[in-house]
């Protein structure tokens, strides 16, 4: 099968990958780009473990053709740390709130939560649950995950008010 060059922005840097046209975006990001936060869980869009942001919105990278990534702006969990490798507030909140047990689902949950934690007005717990309804966790029972997202959203809203 033919290879194709795909040029897109990954975690703020423009990159070009030569991919088999049959690749999924998860194949490209994990295989070609070496971004191991992307998990191959169910591979059929059920579990959310492969979630990345494409132009700011969460997508399951396992059911997204790599060739569709041409020209897109892609953010993965690796792109949340600063240049020194310090993790972001949402990652720290997951640790502090006990929202991580086995950790397999965590990168996907964190990526799904990015649009919510950047909102200007507080979300109800029900709204938070709806935004992460496409992610499965078999360990935590979800309460601590919602806690971590709620806490980070509140923190960010408070920071915006100060500035």
């Amino acid at each position, binding site marked *: 099968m033919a290879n194709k060059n795909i040029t897109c922005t990954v975690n703020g840097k423009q990159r070009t990958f030569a991919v088999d*046209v*049959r690749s999924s975006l998860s194949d490209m990001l994990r295989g070609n780009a070496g971004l191991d936060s992307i998990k191959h869980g169910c591979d059929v869009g059920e579990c*959310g473990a492969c979630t990345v942001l494409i132009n700011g*919105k969460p997508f399951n990278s396992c*059911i997204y*053709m790599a*060739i569709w990534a041409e020209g897109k702006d892609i953010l993965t969990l690796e792109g949340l740390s600063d240049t020194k490798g310090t993790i972001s507030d949402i990652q720290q909140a997951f640790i502090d709130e006990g929202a991580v047990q086995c950790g397999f689902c965590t990168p996907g949950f964190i990526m*799904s939560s990015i649009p919510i934690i950047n909102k200007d007005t507080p979300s109800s717990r029900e709204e938070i649950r709806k935004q992460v*309804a*496409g992610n499965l966790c078999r360990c935590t029972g979800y309460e601590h995950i919602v806690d971590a997202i709620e806490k980070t959203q509140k923190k960010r809203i408070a920071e915006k008010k100060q500035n």
Partner: protein
Amino acid sequence: MYNFNKLYEPTSVEEALRLKKEHPEALLLAGGSDILIKIREGKLAGCDLINIYMLEELRGICLEDDGSILIRPLTSFTDVSMHPVIKGHVPVLGEAVDQIGGPQIRNIGTIGGNICNGVTSADSATTFKTYDAVLELTSMDGIRLLPYAEFNLGPGKVDLRPDEIMTGIRIPKESYENTYGHYIKYAMRRAMDIATLGCSVNVRLSKSKDSIDRLRIAFGVAAPIPIRSTHAEESAQGHALDAALLEAVAEGALADVTPRTSWRASKEFRLQLVKELARRATKAAVEKAGGTING
């Protein structure tokens, strides 16, 4: 790696139509939330694909000069539910597609795919049925306008010819104006689930808001294809807003549905849901229209 055979990548609708004519067996790949999964499961392994996902001309929503709402087929469920034209004129459609899957699926899944798959559980189907949607089906020979009422031929079978691509869904102004709608999806889970039964109702009340001027009701998973209930609609016409209205709609609905037993639910449970969802959705639509059910 997806196990498909050939991949065609048209850069315009015109080119896609030519490819579809030359390769009628090739499948149109829109958002892929059904096709890519079926390829993974092996059901469609080895198929040929025409990738139309990148065709921006097939994306977007607008209000046309005659007041009809035009939805291009590649518009994602998220974009349908967020769009001001949908929120302003047919909010029930946005509320229905906001209950599909989860956020990631609503970002990739397309409204055209939901219709063209032809499944009875499609969450947008019932609302399009109640609003007399008209489909724009395009081939190299021209455009064919087909009432959505005639599109579903059987489970998973639709009247889309091998050389055609669906290029638009229109909701006529006379169908949606002054109406208020409500959709209920009954499923076992609150997300990432397929409807056990779906019911979409919209009403137009009389000027004095004490009777039904027009009621439309459709069901998903109550028959092999999504269906309107004409018995329910006729019995509601001109009816006062009272408990008897809800009973008339529920009983009328029972006359039109033919649900089956599946692993999700029994036929008997679905019949119970038909009555109950008909009552509840009608009541909610009447209340949204500013009416009150008396007694």
